[in-house]
């Protein structure tokens, strides 16, 4: 569906010699029917990659193919739906007129445009606002309008740049459900985001980009380590046994020794024991101090851990490269 190889984009300021390398040899592929999450911090190169794929930016070098067609391909764009980042639309149009304009650009007949626009406006939850001009829309409503216009041509490939941006939790869930619905209908969805919980919830494959370079690429299961990282324990302390209380027993005060992420809320103590810690011995000590176990959860690496690690690594590499 998408095949990107060694894509680079370098911007040069007109009157200075400064070069900005927005993309540095980005390579990845997206298979048909997958939901692909493209994640990275702000300024990592997500939007530049997407704009290059959409023909808005010409790459400095490298190649990319969409639906088997080399960029820039008009034939491919007939089968692609695109939601730009922070979508800006003609604010004097209504959402129905925006969809109609999109339909005209795809060469759809008037009756089909009308029917499709009605369906999509209902699907994105803008039926009650269909008479308003986009100027009166909130950011979240504009995002929904953008999704509607992106789906007018019933695309095979849907490219969404930060589709959850500006949406409230319910709106985000609705967009996630819509993306899953598109996948179930056989579409391929490529979306960028920096909201990792969305990526973990719905993607089949993930790529992490930082400083213009791809840092990791694969399924979420492949990317995160399954090795035990530690054990999260929460215990309820006996009343009056707070470790900071003047009469706290020594046994209880020692519970947090060697632990990380120690947190005390009311009479509950939460902490993380090391992966190689003797959990049974720790629990015995807690019982002896009068504490009652509330939860014990093994801690594995999350996508967020991986993301932070990859981005920090990219930052370190960039600093080393820049050093004289």
């Amino acid at each position: 569906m998408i095949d990107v190889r060694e894509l680079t984009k370098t911007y040069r300021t007109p009157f200075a010699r400064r070069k900005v390398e927005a993309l540095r040899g980005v390579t990845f592929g997206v298979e048909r029917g997958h939901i692909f999450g493209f994640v990275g911090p702000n300024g990592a190169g997500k939007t530049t990659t997407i704009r290059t794929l959409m023909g808005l930016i010409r790459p400095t070098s490298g190649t990319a193919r969409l639906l088997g067609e080399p960029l820039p391909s008009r034939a491919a764009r007939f089968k692609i739906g695109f939601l730009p980042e922070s979508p800006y639309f003609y604010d004097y149009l209504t959402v129905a007129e925006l969809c109609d304009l999109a339909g005209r650009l795809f060469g759809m007949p008037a009756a089909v445009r009308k029917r499709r626009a009605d369906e999509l406006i209902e699907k994105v939850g803008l039926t009650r606002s269909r008479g308003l001009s986009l100027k009166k829309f909130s950011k979240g409503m504009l995002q929904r309008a953008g999704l509607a216009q992106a789906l007018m041509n019933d695309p095979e490939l849907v490219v969404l740049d930060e589709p959850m941006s500006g949406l409230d939790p319910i709106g985000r869930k609705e967009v996630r459900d819509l993306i899953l619905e598109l996948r179930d209908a056989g579409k391929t969805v490529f979306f960028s985001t920096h909201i990792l919980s969305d990526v973990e919830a719905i993607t089949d494959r993930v790529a992490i980009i930082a400083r213009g370079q791809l840092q990791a690429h694969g399924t979420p299961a492949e990317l995160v380590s399954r090795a035990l990282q530690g054990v999260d324990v929460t215990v309820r302390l006996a009343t009056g046994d707070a470790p900071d209380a003047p009469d706290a027993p020594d046994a209880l005060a020692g519970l947090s020794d060697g632990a990380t992420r120690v947190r005390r809320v009311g009479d509950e103590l939460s902490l993380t024991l090391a992966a190689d810690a003797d959990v049974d011995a720790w629990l015995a000590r807690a019982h002896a101090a009068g504490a009652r176990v509330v939860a014990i959860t093994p801690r594995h690496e999350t996508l967020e851990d991986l993301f932070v690690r990859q981005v920090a690594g990219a930052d370190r590499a960039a600093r080393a490269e820049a050093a004289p």
Partner: protein
Amino acid sequence: MIGRIWAIALNTFREAARIRVLYGILVLVLGSNLLAIFLGQLSLHEAGRVARDVGLAGISLFGSLTAIFLGVFLLYTEVQRRTIHAIVSKPISRWEFVVGKYVGMVLVLTVLVGVFALAMIAMLISQRAGVTAGVVKALVLSWFEVLTVAAIAIFFSSFSTPFLSGIFALAMWVIGRLTPDLEAATRYAAPWIQATTKLALEIVPDVHLFAVSGRTLDGSAVSVNGEFVPWSYVALAGAHGLGWTVGLLALAAWLFHRRDFV
């Protein structure tokens, strides 16, 4: 292809119709017609001549300024506001987009020049000045002028900011209007000045061809108040303007094709 260009043109028309400055210009043109009536009253039995000359000058001036204003803003704001991202990511070529914007401007300017012309005709009738064939030909030539100026503006707008595009387009329009005068002024100048002026005038559209009233063509005086140009001249001037328009739009499309929309 036609459907996509038409979609952009209709949207451009809709966008331009919301620009309040255009309504201000409309008021100015109506004001220039009232000025023509006033000046006509001051003249001795020349009310009709004054009405025709001032009325046509108003259409040419305000029509061309409107064309420059629309040309430099309508394309630029698409890029600046990023509305273009959702458009050119669809199966539309960039040249189709540029042509669509121009066609939309043609629609707006045609409506405006039509309103200007109706106002002028109403003014001429009120002054019992008579709407001659010469007046109609002059109006058609003014329309051609405005459309050619729009193409000049959109060409500059394809690679420059509205401020610079406006200055460049205005300069080209003024130089194009003054071409015969500049040629005459340098007739006795040093050869290198003559050669430089000739070269400079070659790269400027001959918009003076659309404003012939009061000039001498082939040794004969031409005036909208007397003997005016034949229809064949109007057609040839139109073809000349069309040639420049096609050339300028082709260049604009090529430049626009090479741009990154970041």
